[in-house]
């Protein structure tokens, strides 16, 4: 029972790190980015190539995956995403689905269509039992990293100059620009941060979620759930939604394997109908 809870929390933490970047582009910049999963996949594959082929230590590969994905994010934002900010939502949907198709096909061309795994170092493979709960060392590490990230993000958003600039740019881009804030640079940096986190999540979660070229489409729904249920206006909303989803999904697959996914989609439908602005979003979010 507690083990399931533990696994669920680890799963939810991963989902949070993966989806939090989407919460920014979608909830804050109001850009429908269905290609967010492609960044996560990029990070995952960077991790796989570094660890499995080049022999880079796992813990060193994680930041490299994040940096690599952030770099891809900057390039794409500067060259392509920038153009669709002002276009219709339909155009954004088409554009990002197009990106997903290209990323999936590109990856299966370069690295093959089969599922891949990251070779974990020896010290992360063990399990230990604390107070009757069996915990995998790897999942413990995942939880630790993600919790630090969540706290760091929250602190950055509320305590630093960048955070207050971002909040200003989001609240009212025109006035923020008038106050001398370089809004487009802020958005580029935020986009890079979001895709970097997705890349880190992809590398970190490859072992738990499974990694193959269909990853962006398979998990697109989960990311969207986290953002729509959590609301995009804060860090805590998506965080709570991700934990809830993670625990519900793991528990659902364990206890009700025949209808697990069904329950999750139905719950999301109900939430969307009753509270379209998100379960945890303040009423006056936008």
């Amino acid at each position, binding site marked *: 029972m507690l083990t399931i809870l533990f696994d669920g929390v680890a799963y939810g933490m991963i989902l949070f790190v993966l989806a939090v970047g989407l919460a920014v582009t979608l909830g804050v910049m109001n850009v429908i980015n269905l290609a967010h999963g492609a960044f996560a996949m990029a990070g995952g594959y960077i991790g796989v190539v570094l660890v499995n082929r080049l022999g880079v230590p796992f813990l060193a590969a994680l930041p490299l995956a994040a940096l690599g994905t952030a770099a891809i994010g900057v390039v794409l934002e500067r060259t392509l995403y920038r153009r669709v900010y002002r276009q219709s*939502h339909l155009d954004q949907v088409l*554009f990002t689905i197009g990106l997903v*198709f290209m990323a999936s096909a590109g990856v*299966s061309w370069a690295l093959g269509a089969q599922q891949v795994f990251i070779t974990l170092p020896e010290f992360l493979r063990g399990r230990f039992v604390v107070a009757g709960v069996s915990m995998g060392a790897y999942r413990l590490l995942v939880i630790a990293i993600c919790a630090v990230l969540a706290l760091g993000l929250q602190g950055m958003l509320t305590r630093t100059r960048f955070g207050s600039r971002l909040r200003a740019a989001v609240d009212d881009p025109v006035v923020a620009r008038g106050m001398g804030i370089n809004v487009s640079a802020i958005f580029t940096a935020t986009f890079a941060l979001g895709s970097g986190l997705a890349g880190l999540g992809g590398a970190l979660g490859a072992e738990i979620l499974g990694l193959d070229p269909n990853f962006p489409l398979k998990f697109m729904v989960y990311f969207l759930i986290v953002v*729509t249920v959590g609301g995009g206006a804060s860090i805590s909303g998506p965080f709570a939604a991700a934990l809830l989803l993670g625990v519900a999904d793991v528990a659902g697959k364990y206890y009700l394997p025949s209808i697990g996914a069904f329950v999750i989609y139905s719950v999301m439908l109900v939430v969307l109908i009753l509270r379209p602005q998100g379960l945890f979003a303040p009423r006056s979010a936008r």
Partner: protein
Amino acid sequence: MSDPTVRGVDLLHDEAAAALSARTRWRWPEFAFWAAAAASFFLLPDQYLLLNEAAIIGLFALSLDLVLGYAGIISLGHAAFFGAGAYTAGILAKAGYGDPLLGLAAAAVVAGGLGFITSFLVLRGSDLTRLMVTLSVSLVLYELANRLVWLTGGADGLQGMVVAPLLGWLEFDIFGRVAYGYSLAVLFVLFLVARRVMGAPFGLSVRAVKGNALRAAAIGVPVNARLVAIYSFAACYAGVAGGLLAETTQFVSLDVIAFHRSADVMLTLVLGGVGYLYGGLIGALVFKLAQGWLSDLTPEYWQFWIGLVFVLLVVAGRERVFAWPLRLFGRGRR
């Protein structure tokens, strides 16, 4: 004797009526399009299977055009209705009611009913909420179809369909001759209906809702009723398209209701252009041909090129790319 201002109003009224009916006049490219479609039935006997699929996808994309192009609802779950129709026709045929037209009627009723029920969910909310709602409806149905193995065959697909001869005497052949003729005829009839409906005041009021729901309400258009009606109507069309696929291929699998079908149909529609009814049909043809050609060229990776086309299309601006077919088919904006 008559009051000049009243006559002026009458004149204006006549002019408006003339302008509106001019929009719905048949133009030569439309005749050419359907003549070519009819000719393909006699001239391209070895392409029947491909053309049949294109006609079905075309009908499906036409249905999405009603929702997306006319009513402005972004749907990422349109396959829900396609799948509902396909499973309805398939299950009926398996149970011994194999008459194709009966199957289509049932598919239309079931999908339309489903559309009616779920239409109330897409009335409110932003584009994103609608997108998520339509997506989750189709995911819920996918899971249902996956789990109700006794009814749908689950992941193995629905096997053992027996489709009776069309109209009692036209047996479906393995070359797809009857199948293509059947699909094309259904497509043509339903297209005429859609063209008539969307040219009528009903269709114009739906467009008004898309343009600006608040103003449409202010001039007396019942916004929600229109959205419910058009959504259910389009769901019927998607159901018929699904039914056609089930009957002409004599097989239904989870593929009919999967997410990629919703994405593909949106891409198909956009490839042909949104909002003038022919877009779905042209897009389906282009999509099928491109799929065949690209997968010959680079099997497995044809999706890359499709994706590239969409990225380029959006970056270049869809309005510019589709200016010419809109003008040609006479439904361009002025």
